[in-house]
């Protein structure tokens, strides 16, 4: 359960005036602040803080996201980044040079159904977000699995000072990249280990609001490892 | 499926400020106060081929209502009653925001609010419309035609409906031995048996103000509207909030109060048009 330090709050309820949290999820009322989504009020810190338990990913400039190529334009791709707004990746950005439709074949670069890791270059809600892959480590995802989770759970998968993420990597030896838009890229040498990571991440998503989670997930991974003999 | 309106004209933000500042002096742009409807004129018998008709002008809004009658079968669950049907068309000649096509949700809502306002209190004695109970009854079609839309279609349509019902004369008919009934449309007989008279009053909430009879511009800047149907005995015989915002308890109460008062203006206009008192 949540305990008295951490309570589930819902829209319409009044939280203390000094509650901290993203502006996207809190509105000012006469007698305090009101959450606009279901979330957790954590009163263990100096100030009460509001953590949403369900929300929508809104792109921000500089975010590294995992996107799915969903369609192709004349000189760009449209990319589902789990936001209300499909993003655009220009061919010229992918190539790092001007695009020549006579000689460059887009379908040889990226195909519909491909996942990419990309950076949000520009977004202001009036036009589609623009992506870029012109940086080290960005581009098409060629191996591993991509898991979808609610975007609000990503901070919990990372954990305070990356505690959860470090534990997951240490315990499994996998590459794990949680992207802010609610997709986690997992790459393991061992398929059993991959399955364990996926189960662990799904469990973190479900139980993100409960206490003692890191320890519990660690135990879970250890148990699974011994059951599967890895 | 109902959608947030996305084709409405853009209202200059300065316009709302202008309206609010003049409201704070207790006035409207046309020098009216906040709780008096625009000038009403009602003309009856405007369409000879209809069994009843009326044209209402409410400020620059014009609505025509026509009553056509037919002989038909009653509904199974009300065999001894005539049938009343209200239909509204927002024809494209009336406004740049109207499109040709089947009635949209606004036209459907208007027709249904008027239908309920007539039906719930029993404006027309439906039993008097049975020719041979269980077999042949009068079917009364009320068709509301919006001709020029300058706001407040509810009140104008209700007045037109009421005046057209008072104007209605049923056609004569011949009953054959086979049981068939043939109408003789050019010979009119009795009027409808009307038990109650109803008007609706529309108020709009704009900022903190409640105003009566909003015109098109006022409806465009209004947060929300309330339609209240009132009968000759000052009973409330129907109501509907229409619009994308809410009302507080106090605003709702205030809107009903001013509606009851403004109803008098509509009743006066209606009595003048039909040539007799109904209250």
């Amino acid at each position: 359960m949540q305990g008295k330090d951490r309570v589930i709050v819902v829209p319409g309820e009044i939280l203390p005036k000094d509650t901290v949290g993203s502006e996207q999820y809190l509105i000012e009322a006469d007698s305090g602040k009101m959450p606009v989504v279901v979330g957790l009020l954590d009163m263990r810190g100096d100030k009460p803080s509001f953590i949403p338990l369900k929300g929508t990913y809104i792109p921000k400039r500089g975010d590294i996201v995992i996107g799915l190529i969903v369609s192709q334009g004349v000189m760009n791709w449209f990319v589902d980044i789990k936001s209300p707004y499909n993003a655009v990746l220009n061919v010229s950005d992918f190539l790092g040079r001007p695009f020549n439709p006579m000689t460059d074949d887009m379908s040889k670069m990226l195909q519909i159904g491909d996942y990419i890791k990309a950076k949000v270059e520009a977004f202001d809600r009036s036009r589609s977000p623009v992506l870029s892959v012109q940086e080290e480590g960005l581009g098409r995802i060629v191996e591993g699995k991509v898991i979808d989770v609610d975007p609000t759970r990503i901070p919990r998968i990372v954990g305070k000072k990356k505690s959860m993420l470090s534990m997951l990597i240490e315990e499994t030896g996998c590459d794990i990249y949680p992207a802010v838009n609610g997709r986690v890229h997992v790459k393991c040498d061992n398929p059993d280990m991959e399955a364990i990571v996926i189960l662990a991440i799904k469990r973190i998503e479900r139980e993100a609001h409960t206490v003692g989670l890191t320890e519990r997930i660690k135990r879970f991974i250890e148990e699974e490892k011994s059951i599967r003999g890895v | 499926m109902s959608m947030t309106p996305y084709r409405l004209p853009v209202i200059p933000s300065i316009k709302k400020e202008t309206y609010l500042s003049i409201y704070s002096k207790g006035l409207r742009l046309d020098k009216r106060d906040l709780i008096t409807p625009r000038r009403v004129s009602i003309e009856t018998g405007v369409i000879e081929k209809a069994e009843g008709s009326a044209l209402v002008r409410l400020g620059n809004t014009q609505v025509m209502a026509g009553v056509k009658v037919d002989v038909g079968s009653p509904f199974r669950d009300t065999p001894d009653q005539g049938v009343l049907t209200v239909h509204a068309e927002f024809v494209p000649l009336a406004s740049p925001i109207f499109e040709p096509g089947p009635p949209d949700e606004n036209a459907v809502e208007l027709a249904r609010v008027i239908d309920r306002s007539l039906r719930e209190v029993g404006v027309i004695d439906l039993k008097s419309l049975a020719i041979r109970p269980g077999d042949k009854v009068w079917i009364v079609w009320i068709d509301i035609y919006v001709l020029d839309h300058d706001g407040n279609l509810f009140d104008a349509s209700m007045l037109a409906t009421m005046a057209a019902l008072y104007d209605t004369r049923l056609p004569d008919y011949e009953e054959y031995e086979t049981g068939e009934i043939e109408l003789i449309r050019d010979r009119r007989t009795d009027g409808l048996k009307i038990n109650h008279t109803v008007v609706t009053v529309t108020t709009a909430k704009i900022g903190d103000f409640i105003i009566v009879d909003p015109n098109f511009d006022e409806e465009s800047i209004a947060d929300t509207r309330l339609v209240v149907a009132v009968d000759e005995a000052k009973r409330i015989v129907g109501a509907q909030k229409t619009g994308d915002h809410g009302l507080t308890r106090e605003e709702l109460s205030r809107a009903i109060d001013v509606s009851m008062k403004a109803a008098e203006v509509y009743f006066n206009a209606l009595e003048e048009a039909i040539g007799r008192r109904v209250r």
Partner: protein
Amino acid sequence: MAKAVEGLRLITEEGLRHDGRRPDELRPVRMEVGVLENSDGSALVEFGKTKVMAAVYGPREPIQKYMVLPDRAVLRVRYHMAPFSTSDRKSPAPSRREIELSKVIREALEPVVLSEQFPRTTIDVFIEVLQADGGTRTAGVTAASLALADAGIPMRALVGGVAVGKIEGVLVVDVDEVEDGVGEADLPVAAAPDIGLITLFQLNGVLTREELDRALEMALGAIRRIVDMEKETLKSKYQVAGEGEE
């Protein structure tokens, strides 16, 4: 719709209703969220035999690109009755009643949805009446409010709805189909009590000014209780998830 049976009394001498309820008593209410897998949020709401499901999709890019607003999300709401929800089969084609109710329900939700957070998108609310026994539109608003919150759509407050009826001269809350069929008046109301806003208000029937005030008072009191139940339902979803731990 049920018809009045001659001589049948729906209010007993003790002031109770045909199903034994007091005038201000709701039918047994059941609420559940997250009942559907595909939608972003969903809810099932029951008031007695009335059973209504709602699902929310979005905010998402609209299928028809022109149906957008530059400064806010477009809310699309459909209230629809399943053909088997009524005694006589209801045609699945949308009736005029359903067109009107879709509109008034949308207008009951618009005041609480923070649509300005998602320009150029649509938020879809689909309401299916699975069994109709009176009060389907207000149960629909209640289910939609829960489904929106379950979907994580930002809301100023939760909305709940109930209808007050006048039956044999007595004002009663949460009318069922039998009462609705014979009642002198039916007042469906929806409100967001936490922000003091009435968002749906219809009157079908005849009331005096004084009766209207009392009926509204009863409706708002019941809605307060309904919204409290909504809050408990949303919270219990997460409490169940953490159960058995620590």
